[in-house]
């Protein structure tokens, strides 16, 4: 059982390394970073306590929001999805990404206290 799981994972990793264009790998690295940051914040909250709660929430939501926006960006600039995003060029996707981030950061900064 574990054997098949390991083989599936290794195969997945191989395919990923070979078939994914570099741009997407850059975005994926960013996604991993955001994920780790959020997870660590959550770990702190579990270990030390929720004081101050608003700061924890704003940090966590910032991570979650950034993750989602980056995923959207990745989907939109992926060349294999070009068929579904006819009207959205990669530049447009990036501009949207930046604008959404501005709004997100405004809210997060307001809430961080």
């Amino acid at each position, binding site marked *: 059982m574990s054997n098949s799981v390991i083989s599936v994972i290794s195969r997945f990793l191989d395919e990923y390394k070979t078939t994914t264009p*570099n741009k997407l*790998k*850059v975005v994926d*690295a*960013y996604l*991993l*970073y955001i994920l*780790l*940051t959020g997870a*660590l*914040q959550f770990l*702190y909250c579990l270990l*030390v*306590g929720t*004081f*101050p709660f608003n700061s924890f929430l704003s940090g966590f939501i910032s991570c979650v929001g950034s993750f989602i926006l980056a995923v959207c960006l990745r989907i939109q600039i992926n060349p294999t999805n070009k068929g579904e995003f006819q009207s959205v*060029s*990669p*530049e*447009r996707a*990036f*501009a949207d990404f*930046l604008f959404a981030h*501005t709004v997100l*950061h*405004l809210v997060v*900064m*307001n809430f*961080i206290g």
Partner: protein
Amino acid sequence: MAQTSWLRVFLFGFALGAQALTPSHYLSLSDVARLETFLGQHFTDLQSAYYSIVGLAKLGAGVADQDEACQFLKAQLDPTSVDSLFYAAVASQALAGCEIPLSNETRDILLAAVSEDSTVAQIHHAVGALTALGLPLASQEVVTALRVRINKEENVVAITLALQTAARLSQQAELGGFVEEIEDLTARLDDLGGLYLQFEEGLEATADFVVAAYGLSDHLDVEPPLKEEQVIQLVNSIFSKKSWDSMSEAFSVAGAAVALSSNRFHVPVVVRAEGPATVSHSKPTLQLLITNVLSQPMGSASVLVESATALATKSVVLSQTPFTLRDGLFELNFMSSQPASGYYQFTVAVTGDSRLVANHVELKVKVSTEVAITNMDLSIVDKDQSIGTKTSRVEFPSKSKDSFTADSHQNFAMAFQLVDVNTGVELTPHQTFVRLLNQKTGQEVVFVAEPDSKKLYKFELDMVERKSEFDSMSGTYSLHLMVGDATLENPILWNVADVILKFLDEEAPAVIQPKTLYIPKPEIQHLFREPEKKPPTVVSNAFTALILSPFLLLLILWMKLGANISNFSMSPSAVLFHIGHAAMLGLMYVYWTHLDMFQTLKYLAIIGSLTFLAGNRMLAQKAVKRMEKK
């Protein structure tokens, strides 16, 4: 009294559907005397003289000095003024042997005042003067003039004066229309809580209306269109005020009182008990005073108890029993029917005159009695019942010669019976208390003795259970029995015996302080909300470093992937874009530290728009480059 009347209306008016409203206000003898004194005060002008002389005449009293009054009228008379003639003429009619000098001009002036151009008040004065002086007048002309004036002046006072004028006219004239005016005026009365009926113009207008209505009805021998309930409500309104502001108000009230006592159709009757409504063996008769609103006794009436119901048991004790008239009071020997002590509801009916209004009255009568304490047994009962019970009987009102000692192994018990002295029936009064008074400290503890099913009162003092009430103070206590009730004529406070109580674990101090209820209490310090405990700085710093570590990972990964900025075109828009973007991020930090939302939005708008424009340009250039590469 008003409260009970209101309650009665609700309960009985709905249940029986009959009008059971009775007068809650009337003129007592002292009120009548006060009214006469007020009207009899010294007058300085003709109008006050009129109110005084005529008012007192109506009440049956006379002015102090009739001749002096007559001289005053003659001296003050102004023969050219209709009002002056009216006051003098009507007042002189009330005085014996007083004649106002007349002349032809007088008659002409008065007749000229009877026209459609004068006000109703002027017509009233003219007609009043003409009839008082015995001069002829054309009644039909007056009726026409009044009709016109009523249509023009529609207020209550004018219509009332018109009715009073009509009452002085000959019966040949068409006066029937005025009776309808009474009904219209009745509709304009304000109902206050179902108890009072009066005009918003005030008490005087209401009283004048009553005088006018009954004056006209008596004159025409037509029953006024007033319901019985309305008559009583008018009575309540008019006689609720016992001191009057002006002579005219007192005059109107006197007129209304006389009208309501002696008209041909409605005479409200006032029924009240003489003294407190209580009967007992020493005073077995219930005496009622039946009067009209002027507190004049109505001897010709016959009074009957329709039913007398005991309030406790709802059983009917008396039915259709007449009262006997003796010395102006109506009496009934209630004790002859041997009622048990308590409260009784009497329904009394006054008959004998078809004019009587509110002649069914509800009265609450109390039957009181005297109580005697019998079979008072005091005993010390041992808890394990190993030693026999020691009982001693005490006779009221002497105190027991033995003293009783009880400690924690024993209970002190008391049993007695309360009986009615006259009938021997066992009683259960409202208050049966046992009071123990510590002779040394003055501490007092009170208990309630309760009757069992056979109405035998028992009281038991369990030393252990009750020690908290006594604060465990041992000592000699004097025992008192207190018996009281509203229906008892002889409340009892009896020092029965002395009891020595011994408590274990005496905790209380030797001198008892009175319960410290009123000394200043300890001050409460306000506790402000404690700020939450922060984790130690070391932990916070460690985690901050930990959180920043993924950023390093990101940089490493990016370097491994070969992400670079080699493609960076130094176009002005790109540079501007990056600067703008960096400025926005910087603004975020400054927002966190210094600014508020409004300022941030302001700066963000400026920087953001610049960045947007530059970014747009830059991305467009990139897109073009990408297209070219393809």
